[in-house]
Structures are given as C-alpha cells and as structure tokens.
C-alpha cells in the first residue's frame, strides 16, 4: 500500500505523469490516480488511496460502486454518481477526484508495480505491506 510522507514532497508531479503513462500510455497528469495538491510555497499534500483492508469508502458508498477487483479496491465509474461520500469518509484524505469526470478514482498500485514509488525523486512514497487500516 503506498503511503505518502507529505513533508518530503517537492511538488514535481512526476508521480502523476508516470501514473498516466502507465495506465493510459499518454502523458496527462489529469488522468492520474494520485494527486499533488499545492499549498505554495509551503508543504504540498499528496492524495493517494492506501487500499485499506477495512475501507470506510466502501461502507459510505450509497450505490455500492466500490468493489475489490483482482484484490484492488476499484470504483465502477458507470455505477458512481459522483456524490463524493467516499471522499468524505476516507480517514486519510486518499480519494482523488478526477478533474475531467468529477468522479473519484482509487490507486491500484499499478497492480503491484508501484511506479510512483520508484519514480518519485523525493522518495515521498513507501510501500507498507499488510498494514492494518
């Protein structure tokens, strides 16, 4: 599970770029499943899903759009009504909302490849195995 240490983030957005490259074969940060929120000039805040074992977002979703697919929490974009209850429910502020569709997106860890973890030059992300949240 990727966990972000905001203090280390320099705001380069490489995580977003590599995420869009991996999932969409195009360079477009707006498609990323991770988001860097600027608070210039002070600390940026990184939004990324931790893939909780006991996910509050699943409980909060009124239309049951969040399910585990191949072991990863995934939001069915057709079912989702963009009510954003999952965003409110997440205790880690970890739900990215797409600027294009207005719907939430969850990190799928690149199916275990964790590209943001390996590409981030500031080493913001750590892989936490078997975390109990």
């Amino acid at each position, binding site marked *: 599970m990727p966990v972000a240490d905001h203090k280390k983030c*320099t705001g380069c*957005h*490489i995580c977003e770029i590599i995420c869009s490259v991996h999932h*969409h*074969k*195009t*360079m477009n*940060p707006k498609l990323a499943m991770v988001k860097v929120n600027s608070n210039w*000039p002070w*600390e940026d805040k990184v939004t990324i899903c931790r893939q909780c074992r006991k996910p509050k977002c699943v409980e909060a979703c009124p239309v049951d759009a969040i399910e585990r697919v191949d072991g990863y929490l995934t939001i069915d974009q057709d079912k989702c009504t963009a009510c954003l209850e999952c965003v409110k429910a997440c205790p880690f502020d970890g739900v990215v909302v797409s600027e294009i569709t207005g719907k939430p997106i969850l990190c799928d860890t690149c199916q275990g490849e964790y590209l943001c973890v390996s590409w981030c030059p500031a080493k913001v992300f750590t892989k936490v195995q078997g975390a109990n949240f």
Partner: protein
Amino acid sequence: MSNNKYFGYAGKILTVDLGSSDYVVENTPFDLIINFMGGKGFGAKILYDGLKANCDPLSEDNIMVVATGPLTGTLMPASGHVTLSTKSPLTGVWLDSHCAGFLGPELKMAGYDAVIIKGKAKKPTVLVIKDDKISFEDGKDLWGKLIFESQELLAQKYGENCQFMCIGPAGERKARFANIVSGGRGFGRGGSGAVMGSKNLKAIVAEGTKGLNIYDFDGFMRMCKESYNELSVSPDTGGGRPKYGTNSIYSFMIEAGAHPVKNFQTGVFKEVRECNEDVLDRKYYKRHIACFSCPINCSKASRVDDGKYRGKFTEGPEYENMWSLGAQCGNSNIGSIIYGEHLCDEYGLDAISAGNVIGFTMECFEKGILSEKQIGFPANFGNDDAIIKFIEMMAKGEGIGELMSQGVRQMSKELGKGSEKFAMHVKGMELPAYDPRGAFGMGLAYATSDRGACHLRAWTLGAEVLDVQERMDPFATEFKAELVKTQQDFFAVIQSAVVCLFLNFGLTQRQITRCIQTLTGIKEWKTTEDILKIGERIYNLTRLFSMREGISRKDDTLPERLLKEPVNEGPTKGVVVDLDSMLDEYYLIRHWDKEGKPTKEKLAELGLDK
C-alpha cells in the same frame, strides 16, 4: 487523449487579438516545427515575420508569443518551462524570456504549442484558455492588485487547477523591467510585464486536460529513466543544486572574485561569512520546491524567523537575487534580500534589474551625482531600508523611482556626470551576477547575448570557475569564442525544446537529442548536429531581428568599467576584459562579418536568405 498530428506537440497555435476579442486556432505548421522546433524558435520566426522594424514595444503593434516546445509537459525531467518572445521595452531589441513552474505544461495540455497575442484590449482584461474554450474576461477588479492576491482571486474564480501568468502594478504602469509572474516563478528579464501592461492584459489563465503522445514509447521511457539517473549522480544536479538551490555556486563565485560587489566596484565581499549558501540552508530554507517533472528541486521556500524581517518569506532567494539585492547593493542582511525578492514578485519587477539599478543609484548617491534631497533619504551601500524603499518606489513610479524604473541606461543618460561609465548594462539590459573581469568568457557572453546582458545565452563559469566542464583559464581569451558560440546554439535548442537549462549540467547534448528524437520521431532530426543547426538558425534569426532595430558591433560591447577600470583588490586585482580579440574570433566562427552581420553564405546555409 489528444489527436495531434505530431508526436510531442499539442498541434495547434492560438492567435488572439485583444483589440477585437477575436481568436483563431490553426494547426502548427510542419515547416515551423522542422526549422524552429518550438519556444524561442517559434517566437523568433513569428516575430521576425510579423513585427515591423522600429515598432514601439509598448504600442499595440507589438506581439507576444508564449510558446512551449516538444519536451514541455512530458516525463522528460525539468520540462515545466515556457517561453515568451516579444520586442523588449527595456532594450528595444529581441527578447525571449523563460518561466519555470507549471504554466507551460498546462498550456500544452490545453492543446496549444503557442499562443500569439496581438493588439491592445480596450479595458483591463483576463484571457482565459480552458482547452478549446477561449474567453476574454473583465480584469477591472484585479487591476492595481498585487500579484499573489491577484493569483488567489483568479484561482477562486477559475479553479485551483488553473495556472496563471499575471502582472502587478509595475507592469500595469509599464515599468521598463516589469516581469510576469506565474505561481512563484516568473518571466523575469527585459520587461515583458510592461508589454502585457501596455496591452491592458492583467493575466492569462490556462487549464488543460488533453494528453501528450509518444512516438517511440519504449525508447522515450528508457531515455527518461536514463536522464533521471544521470541527473541524480551528477555532482551538480544531484548534489549541490538540490541542497542549496542555485546558490550552490555562491562561495565559488566569491572566491574567484566573479561575484560583483557594490555595482562592480570590487569583487571582494567582506560580509560573505554572514551571507552565503550555508547560512541560507541553515537558517532560512524551509523546504525544497520543484517545477513540473523536475528531480533537481533547485527552488526553496525561505522564511525569516527573527529580526526586523521576521515572518517575511519568498520562493527563493536564488543566486541572482542573492547578488542583486545583496552584494550588488553592499547588503548582507539576508532577511532584507528575502523581503526584497518577495516585493519584486508582488509588484512584478525583475529582481536582477531592480537590484542592479539600486546599486547604480547607491553609487550615484555616494559619488554626489544624486543628492539626498533628490532621493528623499540617504542611500549608501549596505542600507537595507533604502533597498526596500527603492523597490516600492520603482514599482509605483514614486519620486526617483520613476526614473529608476526605466533602467540604468536611461537613468545614466539623464543623470550624466560620467555615470554612463558605471551604468552596468549591455544593449540596455542590466548585468546579472557575474563579473567578466573574473571570467572573460562571460564578457563575450554578455556582449553577444541576443537580449542584452544575460547569463542564460552562454554560461562559461562551468569551465572558467567551477569544474563541471573541461577547465579553462578565466583570464585567457583563447577558446572562449568557440565555447560561447556552441553554448548559445545549444541553449537556443534547450529553450526551443523548452526544458530547463539546468539539464545541461547533468545530461549530454546526445542524450537530450535522443529524448527529442524518441518523443517526436521527426525524421529530419537525425543527429545532434541537425539539432544544433536549429539552434544556430534561431540565434542568427534573433540577430537579424535586432539588426533591423539598429544593432551592430558597436552594441556588442561591455560597460566601460569592465573594459577600462580594474578592481584594486582580491583575485581579479588589476584585470580588465580584453573583449575585442574574443569578439573578432566570435564573428569569424559565426561567419558574421566584422560589423557582426551574418554573411550571405551563412544565411543561405541556414535557410534564412529568403
């Protein structure tokens, strides 16, 4: 997904006419791409063809070209840049200015390789570009507001995910070295903010959701990975620069006597113990800031924790401003430098020119050319209160600040009394933070830079003072012409691929060329030589542009102080710059005649003879 025709490019050029609030969107011409690549190159071609000679830079006839390049907004490291080309109101000649941060990628994601801005709006205007939707909105409420407040209001109105370019009160009142700010970064030099002000354009807002596609996916990904690795192991981009920012060179420059002090009167900065990169890192730097896609994070957020500037902050201060508001003014109070830089960003003034002008004014005061009555307060070197007051006066055009805001060339012209000899400018642009008497190559670099005294057209310090390139004797004239010419051509490529020049400290020309090739797949760009030819073409075209405005050998010179007045202490004691011999050789290598005019043969070779 974008459906652009050429890989790496957004594929469209947006031309707006502020006078009629009209716009057209056209495909980016393939000829333009092949011959001029992007950024500075696009600007050079569009302005050379589109501007009449001798047009008033502050009239509605002037044009601004905001352009990105193929590498902008990609995974390529340090791809967050964007260029602005126009005719400079400070120099009256060619100007390209470059801004880091996030604006370039956003414009490109909106679908545009370039935005061409023509005409003059009837009232204060904000140009909003959101993908295909272009609108001209009322900027009346923002007019007169400081830049950071303006940007906050723009973010509230147009969304947190937008990027901006915005002028402040200095640009609105057309101060000749007004800048344009984007986030915490800026189009610094040459007065592009005044051009924007003259067009009644307060801000441009950009937001884009389109993506950029890659020609050779695996090849480009491999080159990006290689580039990140190379940058991380370079002693510069992987060592000093991430830690200290651009100030990583500060102590080296002081040691070499290449850091000018008190308006270039000396190269010895006695207060260096309290004002250097270690003090900055220990006491002021609070966090590292990176631009889009950049692992170097040379920018810092700084805050003053005690003393009379407690609570003041800035994104910086970077090396140039540490000098301009520091040693140039005999000032070692870092708090005042941080506050001064913040004020320059708030009002929209180029902090290099601002500090240079203040140093000049202080020398005029100490020499009795300007009196306390004329200035309003004593303005000796080292007076940090005076520095802060001067910045506000220049921005608002108050008292002596009105004259100061026209730059040292104009100021010395009006003051006379020998002040021309120490007005530190080339072609009207104020010198930055390197003394050519401690590194001759920089003398030639300043004299032949296409936009006037600038350190970003060639930067010879890597060879003359630092050990990042093959070492050269800083006081020798040999080989400097070749070094300057090669750098000017290659830097023009970087500024047209539109990435950060700092890549030059970690990557080879070959690697950068490979990145461009794998991304775009353009067959005409086979070798590094093909790419360098584009750089040479651009540099010759900006020369032709400025020649049309009357520039010749007489202007490719340095302030008299550097040619005739040696420093009498420190490592550069007794040295003056031997410019003429370097200049002769430079013209020869460039195939320019003795007056600095490109030969017919050279122009034909570059396809610029038509």
